[in-house]
């Protein structure tokens, strides 16, 4: 009986969440006009792919640079609008396009037939070859794709290289990671034997890291699969046409080879000259700030919503109870990472202007509420019924009883568990980095790509997380001690 109600409530809940998504795909071409009306072109990219796109620190601020960024700038200028860059995982780019988080994607992306099914591409603006990065000490072993047997080859998940390795190097394993930096760390530490990547990028890595070397492994590449193009939502013909016009001009003037790549190269050498961690403390500071903002705001709203859910769950109202139980079970039964992506891409498809930071905070708050609700419920249930009966016998209503008798005592009991939830959130909130929120984890990745150093930023980040959680647990411990004496 009871479990049937829970199921019904669960299904209703899911349907409520899914129904609005149906509206998304209604797209008739007003794309160009829309961009002009907004006055900004929002371009998605995965900025860990030098020389195409990467980050540099200019007078204390992070900015996105690279040949793709130059093209995007020119495109925006030709349209007469401002340019806004959104940095996210390569995997998420097409989803961001389909859900209209961005107007265009430029990220060294190959216009493969698979991708063409879901988005429209401009003409190819640059065609590089498919290379491999290996450790210099292995240079004698690996010459081309046939020198590898039972080896592990790294490639960016969802990339053309990943497919090539999978299809043309069948007696090897493919290791897919989202970030090129992580792949290069894997290469340096021997987790993978080579990393397949695009020519210019591979050369950039080798140029900045003397233990690495590039080879041309001679993949059998169909020319329609190579080359980079800009991606647009399916049916955005007006934008595609405008992009092709910009690209034609760029090619006529040979801007990519004459201006954009040399500029990117300059940024890269600058980056590698000052890749001491000290130069990047502002990144970490910014990351700490975001992580704390996300955590504190989420703790606050998670707590309020958690109290409401706990009271609903304990209430006599059967529907309210079923909804609360369904919510709590559902949230606790799905990973936070999926919830974050769902809020950003799913809910964000309906409310298009939903910023990543807000989406992250919403997802983390909603998640935390479920856990807090259970903590509060157990706290409330731990208060002896005699307390409630004494209050009710004095004429206190149910709500006065909760407010003055039950909740204050429950809070005192659950304070340590709530503190734990706070500490957990500092750590768990790192997941919002996947949608491009600038928290500590995300900044770490920026520092990695800017410095070409893999492990040191991870170590520093780890220490910072520890200092934050340890410090907080000391502070909470102090207040816990004081509450005991009260």
């Amino acid at each position, binding site marked *: 009986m009871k479990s049937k109600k829970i199921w019904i409530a669960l299904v209703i809940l899911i349907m409520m969440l899914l129904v609005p998504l149906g509206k998304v795909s209604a797209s008739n071409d007003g794309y160009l006009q829309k961009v002009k009306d907004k006055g900004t072109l929002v371009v998605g990219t995965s900025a860990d792919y030098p020389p195409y796109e990467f980050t540099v620190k200019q007078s204390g601020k992070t900015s996105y640079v690279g040949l793709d960024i130059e093209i995007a700038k020119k495109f925006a200028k030709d349209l007469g609008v401002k340019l806004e860059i959104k940095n996210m995982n390569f995997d998420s780019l097409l989803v961001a396009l389909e859900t209209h988080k961005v107007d265009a994607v430029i990220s060294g992306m190959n216009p493969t037939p698979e991708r063409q099914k879901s988005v429209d591409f401009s003409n190819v603006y640059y065609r590089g070859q498919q290379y491999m990065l290996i450790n210099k000490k292995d240079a004698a072993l690996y010459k081309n794709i046939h020198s590898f047997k039972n080896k592990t080859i790294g490639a960016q998940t969802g990339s053309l290289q990943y497919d090539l390795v999978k299809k043309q190097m069948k007696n090897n394993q493919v290791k897919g990671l989202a970030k090129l930096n992580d792949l290069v760390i894997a290469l340096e530490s021997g987790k993978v034997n080579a990393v397949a990547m695009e020519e210019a990028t591979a050369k950039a890595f080798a140029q900045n890291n003397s233990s690495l070397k590039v080879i041309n492994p001679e993949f059998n590449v169909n020319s329609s699969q190579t080359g980079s193009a800009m991606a647009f939502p399916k049916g955005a013909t007006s934008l595609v046409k405008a992009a092709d016009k910009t690209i034609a001009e760029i090619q006529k003037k040979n801007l990519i080879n004459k201006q954009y790549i040399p500029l990117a190269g300059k940024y890269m050498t600058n980056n590698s000259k000052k890749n001491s961690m000290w130069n990047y403390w502002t990144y970490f500071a910014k990351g700490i700030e975001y992580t704390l903002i996300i955590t504190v705001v989420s703790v606050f709203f998670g707590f309020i919503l958690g109290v409401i859910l706990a009271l609903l769950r304990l209430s006599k109202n059967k529907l309210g109870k079923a909804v609360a139980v369904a919510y709590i079970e559902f949230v606790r039964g799905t990973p936070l990472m999926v919830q974050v992506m769902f809020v950003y891409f799913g809910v964000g498809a309906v409310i298009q202007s939903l910023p990543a930071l807000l989406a992250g905070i919403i997802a983390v708050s909603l998640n935390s509420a479920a856990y807090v609700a259970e903590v509060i419920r157990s706290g409330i249930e731990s208060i002896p019924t005699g307390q409630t009966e*004494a209050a009710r*016998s*004095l*004429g206190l*209503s*149910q709500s006065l009883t909760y407010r*003055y*008798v039950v909740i*204050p*005592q429950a809070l005192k009991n659950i304070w340590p568990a709530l503190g734990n939830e706070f500490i957990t959130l500092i750590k768990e909130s790192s997941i919002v980095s996947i949608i491009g929120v600038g928290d500590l984890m995300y900044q770490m990745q920026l520092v990695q790509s800017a410095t070409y150093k893999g492990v040191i930023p991870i170590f520093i980040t780890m220490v910072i997380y520890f200092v934050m959680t340890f410090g907080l647990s000391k502070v909470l411990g102090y207040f816990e001690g004081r509450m005991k004496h009260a």
Partner: protein
Amino acid sequence: MPNMIEIKNLEKSFGDNQVLKNITEVVKKGQVICVIGPSGSGKSTFLRCLNVLEQPSAGQIIFEGQDLTNISEIELNKLRERMGMVFQSFNLFPNMNVIDNVKLAPLKVKKTMEKEAIQKAGQLLEQVGLADKAEQFPLSLSGGQQQRVAIARALAMNPEVMLFDEPTSALDPEMVGEVLKVMQDLAESGMTMIVVTHEMGFAKKVADQIWFMDEGYIQEKGTPSEFFANPKTSRAKEFLSKIL
């Protein structure tokens, strides 16, 4: 004397277990009634039905003309203000000090002014002999002191009737006297009281009527002198022979 509480055909079951079986009695204003009987006979359940902490399964509880079994939650809260209750395990609020325990209900339910509530609470603590403990927290007091605070707390709402459920059963023997003394004073001041107790000395001295309860019925009732000297039912005889 006018009727204060009329109990009509009261029944209470927990699942298949019928604990109270058709009880019809009257409590008059100013009466002190001691309810005695073996463990598990339904005394606590009976008392808790009177202020509807337990919802009766059948029958009526008519308090000053109003049927408590058939009114809204809000009206019920109002009527509970007029019936004080004291529990075996005190049930003081451990998160508040003594005086806050006493003035909570007047402040939040009756919306009494703070100053007036403090004054009244102080008076009541004086009455139960604990004026010097006002700022202490309940858990730092002895059982006897806690129970006297609980009585003061119930009295703070100016109730017309006081319900006591074995108020001295959880106390060490040397503390029983101080609580019974407070209750006796209260009875002498004219308070209507219904007291579930195993303290036969108190019952003999203070009660106007003894109700003997067994197996969900009030088997026998009478004045203390009648009942204790000359119980009529064999169950009452058996019960008395065990405890005296």
